């Protein structure tokens, strides 16, 4: 299914694609560079890719930390809702919870009214929502986070492919050069003998 073309995607979301080299000699002629300059150019490309990779990895770590947080919030809202439901037919027992007041110091809280929660939206803003609204909002945030993570992972895969292609190209250019030198030495040695 994959077409045997010379190179795949030329770039993806700002990341330049590394073009695959069919023939090293042609490639060097195309670039108009000698071997050393070509190697320097390719090494620079590799460094740029590494920088982008660091950035993407940091973003991935942030998202991977955010997702369990959202899931914990959903858990609490679900617990409050369940408490409210059982509270309607049984005796309305408040939810007692121990929470951290400061590092190492805990206090007991009595949560009576479970019909609404306050959600921290960031930027020093906190809003009160009904349990259902809070659930919907948190679910949406969770889905967005998971979707962003997927896109990020695909970006990283693309990037790593380009890094691999560049590394292989560097090895091949270097080997071609070594090979050329050997041929030259061999012809020079044989012409000396004759």
């Amino acid at each position: 299914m994959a077409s045997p073309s010379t190179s795949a995607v030329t770039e993806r979301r700002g990341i330049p694609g590394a073009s695959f080299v069919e023939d090293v000699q042609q490639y060097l002629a195309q670039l108009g560079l000698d071997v050393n300059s070509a190697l320097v150019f390719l090494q620079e490309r590799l460094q740029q890719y590494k920088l982008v990779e660091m950035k993407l990895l940091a973003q991935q770590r942030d998202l991977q930390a955010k997702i369990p947080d959202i899931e914990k919030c959903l858990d609490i809202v679900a617990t409050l809702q369940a408490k409210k439901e059982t509270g309607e037919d049984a005796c309305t027992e408040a939810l007692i919870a121990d929470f951290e007041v400061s590092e190492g110091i805990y206090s007991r809280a009595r949560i009576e009214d479970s019909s609404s929660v306050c959600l921290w939206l960031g930027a020093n803003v906190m809003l009160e929502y009904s349990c259902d609204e809070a659930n919907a909002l948190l679910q949406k945030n969770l889905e967005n986070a998971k979707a962003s993570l997927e896109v990020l992972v695909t970006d990283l895969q693309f990037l790593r492919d380009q890094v691999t292609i560049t590394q292989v190209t560097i090895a091949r250019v270097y080997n071609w050069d070594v090979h050329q030198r050997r041929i030259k030495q061999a012809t020079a040695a044989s012409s000396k003998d004759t």
Partner: protein
Amino acid sequence: MQQGGGSETEVTWEDQQNINKFGRLNNRLHELQDEIKISKEANESLEDAGNELILTDDEVIRFQIGEVFAHMPKEEVEERIEQMKKTTSKNLEKLEEEKNSVLAQMAELKKILYGKFKDSINLEDD
């Protein structure tokens, strides 16, 4: 991952794609190994918690939800822990399955790539 010899074996686009795929699989393998380790530790913690529950006399247990410890009756805590154990075990199974599939694919690719490039390529974990 790669090292060059001085050979002149040509690298085709298909070879490059195989090398890329191997790289991706190798990365995924390391990620899976980390995830499996975390999942196993979570399973063990849940086991320990379950055992503690059996031993304790308390009727009300403080169960951690998010950042707070909610007071819950023992039975409910037992149920929750059972539920969590089931989820983590299923997750662990899925991860192990994926890991085996990745290892199989990597073995296939190793055969193909070593077959063509022999000593010119190094596909081992350093």
